[in-house]
């Protein structure tokens, strides 16, 4: 029995098929597992291990290296606030303190209603709109405390559901298309084309 729901299981199998080696699908699969469960559950990890031909311990060890993977449940909304250099110069630390007060939770923890997890992040590559705030890895671009509070109210009221999908959802656009041909065939074709080009070049120089 698959722990992933049917649609995600299908996407997972497609992902594995994209790579020359199964293990390469590790990070995309972990994102999928997180999309379903909100964090990396034991069942999700076991399924990723099976899909990549590795062990749960190996998957857990790999996942723990990466900041975006949560080994414990997190809030519905993961709020990330950057305090790195450009944001520091624009009041990132003050924004983080403000967010902590608004959400009623310390940095690195989840609000009592389970809705928000607050994180201090490194540079999020949006430094011209500093301090930078992301919710579920979507840029919300609230650079003042008032705008931040308004955004939180909008999240609570469900008004940002489209812009900020649930935690873990990284790509709503599903891959279509792909090279369905046998790779050996492609390589053979390539060699043939190269030979033809060389023959043509030889003729031209004559």
């Amino acid at each position: 029995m698959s722990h992933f729901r049917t649609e995600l299981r299908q996407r997972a199998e497609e992902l594995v098929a994209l790579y020359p080696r199964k293990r390469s699908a590790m990070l995309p699969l972990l994102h999928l597992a997180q999309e379903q469960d909100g964090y990396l559950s034991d069942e999700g990890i076991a399924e990723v291990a099976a899909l990549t031909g590795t062990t749960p311990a190996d998957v857990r060890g790999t996942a723990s290296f990466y900041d975006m993977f949560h080994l414990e449940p997190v809030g519905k909304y993961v709020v990330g606030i950057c305090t790195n250099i450009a944001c520091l110069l624009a009041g990132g630390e003050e924004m983080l303190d403000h967010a902590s007060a608004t959400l009623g939770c310390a940095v690195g923890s989840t609000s009592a209603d389970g809705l928000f997890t607050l994180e201090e992040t490194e540079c999020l590559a949006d430094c011209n709109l500093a301090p930078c705030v992301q919710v579920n890895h979507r840029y919300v671009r609230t650079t003042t405390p008032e705008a931040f509070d308004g955004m939180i109210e909008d999240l609570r009221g469900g008004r940002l559901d489209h812009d900020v999908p649930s935690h873990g959802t990284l790509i709503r656009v599903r891959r279509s298309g792909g090279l369905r041909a046998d790779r050996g065939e492609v390589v053979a074709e390539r060699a043939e084309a190269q030979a033809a080009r060389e023959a043509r070049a030889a003729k031209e120089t004559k």
Partner: protein
Amino acid sequence: MATLDAPRIVSSRASFEDSHTLTRYLATGGYDALRKALSMFPEDVAAEVDEASLLGRGGAGFPAGRKWSMLRKSPVSYLVVNGDESEPATFKDHFLVERDPHQLVEGIIIAAYALQVSQAFLFLRGEFALGLERVQQAVNDAYEHGALGRKIFGSSFSLDIVVHPGAGAYICGEETALIEALEGKRGFPRIKPPFFPAVTGLYGEPTVVNNVETMANLPWIISNGGAAFAALGGGRSTGTRLFALAGRVKNPGVYEIEMVKNTFRDLIYDPALGGGIIDDKELKAIIPGGVSAPWFGPDLLDLPLGQDEVAEKGSMLGSGSIVVMDETTCVVRATWRITKFFSRESCGQCTPCREGSGWLERVLYRLEHGGGRAEDIDLLLDLSDNIAPGLTWPPQQTTICVLGPSIPSSIHSAISMFRDDFVAHVQHGGCPHD
């Protein structure tokens, strides 16, 4: 005055609301360069790029054409495109990925054709959720349009591009760590030699790794010719470049300007660019090229924005990021935050980097937050010297990758330039700005 008459090579479509769509891309000449490339010999496509003298835009500035030619002797297996962009205050790839994903995709296809690879991976930072969607959509559209997949535009060339999300780790921007991540492992940089993934890359096979912006330049180079690109800029720094300007300026943002023809002053003060310092304060220092780079003072404002020009003055243009600090900036706090970043992101394989970064961070923390001692200032320099002996630039390599030896850059710069600020922190028992 800034020189702003150069063509926009990579940001020409950015002002359109729908710049990310195939419709807009095709309406503005999109995929014409690819058609042209496919009518050329792959070697000639590579030769154009060589002639353009396009320097890699990921940080090290290695000429793309030269990187490719090292591989021409043996077949390349994979092209890997680096879109991990996590160097603090660098945000130009983010701009390219969201605003013009088709240009990036077309660049990748052209590079793949020149290298004759049939499999490319685009590694994008996981935090770019919208960027990932836009690029995946562009890839889907390109397949649909016949620009990707089997027998592209009816030629005998076939290519597959896989968009691969990262998961939050700065070190995965280092190319060998990126390859490890692409193999589904922890992002540990690989021991060198071999120095280039060209020798042993993805799955142990010859691999070319190039930055997103490097790829984005290719459609223009093929359409207009390498010579036209090389005619822009000056010296080894040809073409234009995206500069990500941030910090205490009025108009922070991504600006495409001609290399060398413009100076730091132009970028920071020209009304069409940075527009000057917030509240017209005095400039204190700039960080050129990302937080791994040594700082410059106001005395170097008239230095041209060129790779060699900046290197000669002991720093680097690096990732094209420029951070402006002004008289209100506490340099101890800035240095502490940068060091905290390195300490958080060190992968932990090498002792000088792992232990050194944490120790430096703790010393800087106590200087900034109270409890700093007079001897801490020299302790910082001594620890830095242990990580990068001699505190030279470029730094001496004591570790597997250059993250470690980059840690002392800001500390050494800040203490050399503003030692009095550190002393004031000791005397005040914390930050006098608070």
